[in-house]
């Protein structure tokens, strides 16, 4: 049984009080650039999933509390939650540092993009 804590309202409960919402940080390509969405991008958005054995990043919903969606970092082998963070946020830097494989690539790209946006502005 997982014990989940909502970072929005602070409610803590077991997994039946929450709703597991699948992989986190999936971006809908049509939101960013509706005119140029390739079939491959749409496939990646709808179906391709990072499915790591180890640290994973997910969406959860606080079903019986505030009803808000939020993010969680969880190990898929030990079932241990590493962090809960807001729906618009990135995980804490120490958790990002533990990410491996496709997640490590994703966060490197995302952080790089944000850094260049900041320096550009």
């Amino acid at each position, binding site marked *: 049984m997982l014990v989940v804590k909502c970072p929005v309202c602070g409610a803590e409960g077991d*997994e039946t009080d929450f709703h597991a919402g699948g992989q986190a940080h999936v971006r809908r390509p049509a939101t960013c650039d509706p005119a140029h969405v390739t079939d491959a991008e749409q496939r990646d958005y709808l*179906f391709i*999933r*990072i*499915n790591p*054995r180890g640290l994973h990043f*997910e969406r959860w919903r606080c079903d019986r509390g505030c009803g808000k969606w939020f993010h969680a970092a969880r190990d*898929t082998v030990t079932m241990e939650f590493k962090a809960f963070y807001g729906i618009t946020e990135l995980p804490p830097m120490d958790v990002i540092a533990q990410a491996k*494989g496709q997640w490590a690539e994703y966060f490197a790209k995302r952080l790089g993009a944000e850094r260049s946006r900041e320096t550009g502005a």
Partner: protein
Amino acid sequence: MKPRYSVFSLARNAMNYHKDWERAWRSPAPKKEYDAVIVGAGGHGLATAYYLAKNHKMTNIAVVEKGWLGGGNTGRNTTIIRSNYLQDPSIAIYELARSLYEDLSQELNYNVMFSPRGVLMLCQTQHEFRAFQRTAHANRLAGLDCRMVTPQEVKEIVPIINDDPNCRYPILGAYYQPRGGTGRHDAVAWGYARGADAMGVDIIQNCEVTGIQREGSQAAGLETTRGVIRTRKIGVVTAGHVSTIMDMAGVRMPIESQCLQALVSEPIKPVIDCVVMANTVHGYMSQSDKGELVIGGGTDPYNNYSQRGSFPALEHTVAALVETFPIISRLRMLRMWGGIVDMTGDRSPIISRTPVEGLYVNCGWGTGGFKAIPGSGWVFADTIANDRPHPIAEPFGLNRFEEGRLIDESVAAAVAH
């Protein structure tokens, strides 16, 4: 050639206090090079190796397995065999598998205990009743033997069922596939392993794949914990761990790995002689030859590689079945376990070539792979041997996710998802 199992060999070995039985398969050291290597010695992988050797005369092949053969989902399912899916591509492959099961014991000279005891899928809402009527029509058009049965017939087939018309989900009827049933899951893996081994296939256990070698876009070999194995044809059949293996070749998969649990009760006298699936309340049950009630339900809703599921999922399943079969409410449960199932977006399997030449993948069977083992092995072997999809495997290609050509069984079929 191995000595055949028969009543005479049984009698002969009984005279010798069973000291002279031969090992069912060898434990060879891996060779440097093979014509093809299958990754994963579960039912699907071993069946693929068996049909590669038998139908396509490829005997210089190996099956590598990180644990022991049949130790994953093949040994963890609820052994239900049926083919009553809605979509034509699904019917084709599951019915091929079911029909191969019928004479599999003779084919393998190994008793897989296929028992066509009938599969009864309850209709507990008006919507479910109409959905199953639609499935029944589709199945009969495809030549499947099935029919809808009335609540009275349901009670005759399964006398222990709760037929109270005033309960929350009353039985309104059922879909019945009399040729479905159960099999002995371990024996299917062991039978295919013994058959493949007899034709010269090397089954290498305790050999974990750690990397996939490529020469340009062509697969060139496998790095394993027992050394490098060179091969130009690799078939990946690793169910819940398929994303991890395919990641080694740089192929990203439309798969999420989740835990599906099952449990058995203490053994009791025969009370139910068919498989009953109650999809509205979400549970299914049959009785094993040992007398244990074999019970399964739905997956946990989140990714999991631990082979241990969550308690709420089990509680939900058991609650549903106690409502459906009130007499089981005082039974004690003996064992529970979990398997890591590979779920695709449309809940249909993937049998496919990949962007890497010579790398093939067979996965995505999710919560219903056992019933498909012979058919899956048959078409996947053909796909590997001829480097083009078998006609039955063709709709299950990886490209369907890009083309939007889904085989949508997640809402369509009579599947307990």
